[in-house]
């Protein structure tokens, strides 16, 4: 259960090695240790994350999860719920890809769409079903400002996040009558392994800062948040910039 001041007792991270996802789990764990399920492909990074969380007093379980293996998703989600309620589920897996490759290579484009959109929808349906039965809980989906308006430099990734964003925004409404809060998080440029070597956009941020936004959103049941917060107004303006101007902007 999530208590009166917003402390969860259990958390499921899909994309168990996501830097933002792990930063959020660690931020929750710093306030109070909990049961953690990390769903990811086995790796050294996963083992390290498990050890770090255990050092904070969490009971950590890892589950082998491959976003592309769509037919395994329901079973993996069921497994996480089999041990007890899942108070917070974070959908944090995703690929950035190389935009020039992605829009010219069918296989690359489909891979991005499958991982970022299809797989996110697939786990979203499974999580929605379990959370609905549970009658409470919080579901966090990592979207991106890239999904708010497609840019020439990043539109394949942006299109997948636009799809994810729309799905989870709708899921917010669908699950609300069942006592479940869905939060769509739209970070800007985040300094992570995924964006290493890329030129940071203005208002760039860190996984820890995004994690703080997530923790606050879960505690206060916010349904749509930007990280950092001022991006909300920046994006609101950018969405209305005419195309001839927009294409000349250094974004």
């Amino acid at each position, binding site marked *: *259960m*999530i*208590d*009166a*001041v*917003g*402390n969860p*007792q259990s958390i499921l991270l899909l994309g168990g090695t996501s830097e933002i996802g792990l930063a959020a789990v660690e931020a929750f764990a710093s*306030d*109070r240790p909990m049961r953690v399920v990390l769903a990811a492909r086995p790796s050294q990074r996963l083992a390290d994350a498990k050890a770090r969380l255990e050092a904070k007093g969490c009971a950590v379980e890892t589950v082998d999860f491959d976003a592309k293996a769509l037919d395994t998703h329901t079973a993996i989600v069921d497994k996480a719920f089999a041990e007890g*309620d899942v108070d917070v589920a974070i959908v944090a897996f995703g690929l950035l890809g190389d935009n020039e490759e992605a829009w010219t290579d069918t296989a690359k484009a489909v891979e991005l769409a499958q991982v970022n959109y299809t797989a996110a929808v697939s786990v979203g349906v499974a999580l929605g079903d379990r959370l609905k*039965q*549970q*009658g*409470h809980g919080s579901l966090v989906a990592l979207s991106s400002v890239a999904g708010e308006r497609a840019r020439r430099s990043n539109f394949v990734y942006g299109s997948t996040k636009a799809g994810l964003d729309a799905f989870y925004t709708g899921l917010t409404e669908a699950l609300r*009558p*069942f*006592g479940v809060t869905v939060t769509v998080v739209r970070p800007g440029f985040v300094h992570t392994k995924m964006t290493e070597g890329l030129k940071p956009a203005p208002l760039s941020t860190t996984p820890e800062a995004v994690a703080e936004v997530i923790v606050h959103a879960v505690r*206060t049941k916010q349904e749509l948040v930007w990280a950092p917060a001022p991006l909300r107004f920046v994006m609101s303006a950018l969405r209305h910039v005419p195309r001839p101007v927009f294409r000349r902007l250094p974004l």
Partner: protein
Amino acid sequence: MAQVLGRIADAHESASFTPSVAWLPMTSPASETRTLHGWGRTAPTVATVITPRTPEEVAAAVKAAGRRGIIARGLGRSYGDPAQNAGGTVLDMTGLARIHSIDADSGVVDLDAGVSLDTLMRQALPFGLWVPVLPGTRQVTIGGAIGADIHGKAHHVVGSFGNHVEAMTLVLADGSIRELTPEGPDAELFWATVGGMGLTGVIVRARLKLHHVETAYFKVDTEQIDNLAELMERQTRDDEKYAESVSWFDAVTTGEHFGRGLLTRANHATLADLTPKQRKNPLKFDAPQLLTVPDVFPPGMLNRVTGRLFSELWYRKSPTKLGAIQNITQFLHPLDIAGEWNRGYGPHGFLQYQFVVPPERGDVIRTVLERMTEAGQVSALNVLKRFGEGNRAPLSFPKPGWTLCVDIPIGPGLNELCEELDRIVLDAGGRHYLAKESRTTPEAIRRGYPRLEEWRAVRTAVDPAGVFASDLARRLELI
């Protein structure tokens, strides 16, 4: 033989404890999906709410409970989550609301668990009977009063609610219906149910022993005392002279007047104490509700400025006065004058932090208040009382010592503050009140209630499959 004077019409009475007869037309009770929260308006969850009208309907609902279990709910005055059950079933017990009989001579009342203390008081007072344990509100059901083993300002004399229960009828996890008494063959289950937060079964009916009074008024001594140490010293010295005793204090003023407060203590007024006008109707139930607070308040209504203002006014409104005659609302339930007053805290809700520490650890009260002030938290309703002896119930909250209760709106920094207060309270051998609790850890409850395992064993014996479940039980790992 005692003469039964008051008998409220009850067609079901003789059939209440026998199984339903198959040929009777049966309608299933109302059922709906609802979002439920406690009085603190925090942590809402969704459950299927069923409103049974008979013990048999309760038993049927218990037998039909799904994987997420079932829990009884009364009037929702617990601050946290004991009367919610996310994804499961919640029984709205206010559908079982008959008073079956009132015996004016013996003071024994036989009534359904969904009857409120307010209704009981209204019905019993004309017979000169008084409910011995009254908490800060009358909007509590009998089932809830037993389940939380509530206490009131008279605890130092009469103990908690469970002490006045002569018998209760419990619907068990298997759907069977059993009558329990404090000393009978099921005494262990009786006492596990007192304070058991509804997790041993559903209380459907009870027999209570009330006290005899001459009037519905109190003869009240109110004393303004200008610091905390003296406020506590006075309660230690001569509380025994009074049937009721409680103190309110100001947690905003610092310095030498830190903890200045009002000590209000009273005895039931006798006929001779009343004015001629009051004497005409000495058992009048005088407890008006003047307004209902609308749900329009923004967050942050209680801040340092309004907190200081409220504290000043509350302190000033009651200068020292001995022997004043006060009615029920004035003395017992000043907050009941406004309905739904919890809305005043705004949409984020609030929590009530209540604990008890042993008599020799009165210093903890001061430490807790200082920590709160340092953390910048504002509490306007601060109630301090000295408890008398506890009872046999393993999860009953009261034990000898000091109990402090503060209201704090939900906001930044509250989590950290409460975690620190938990450590201070537990290290002093104290514990938290489950009816108020909304945020602590399972570990804190294990430490505060050393007899938790004993309670769990009794519960497991009657509910091995865990049919009775609540958000509180899941959160604090009680089951």
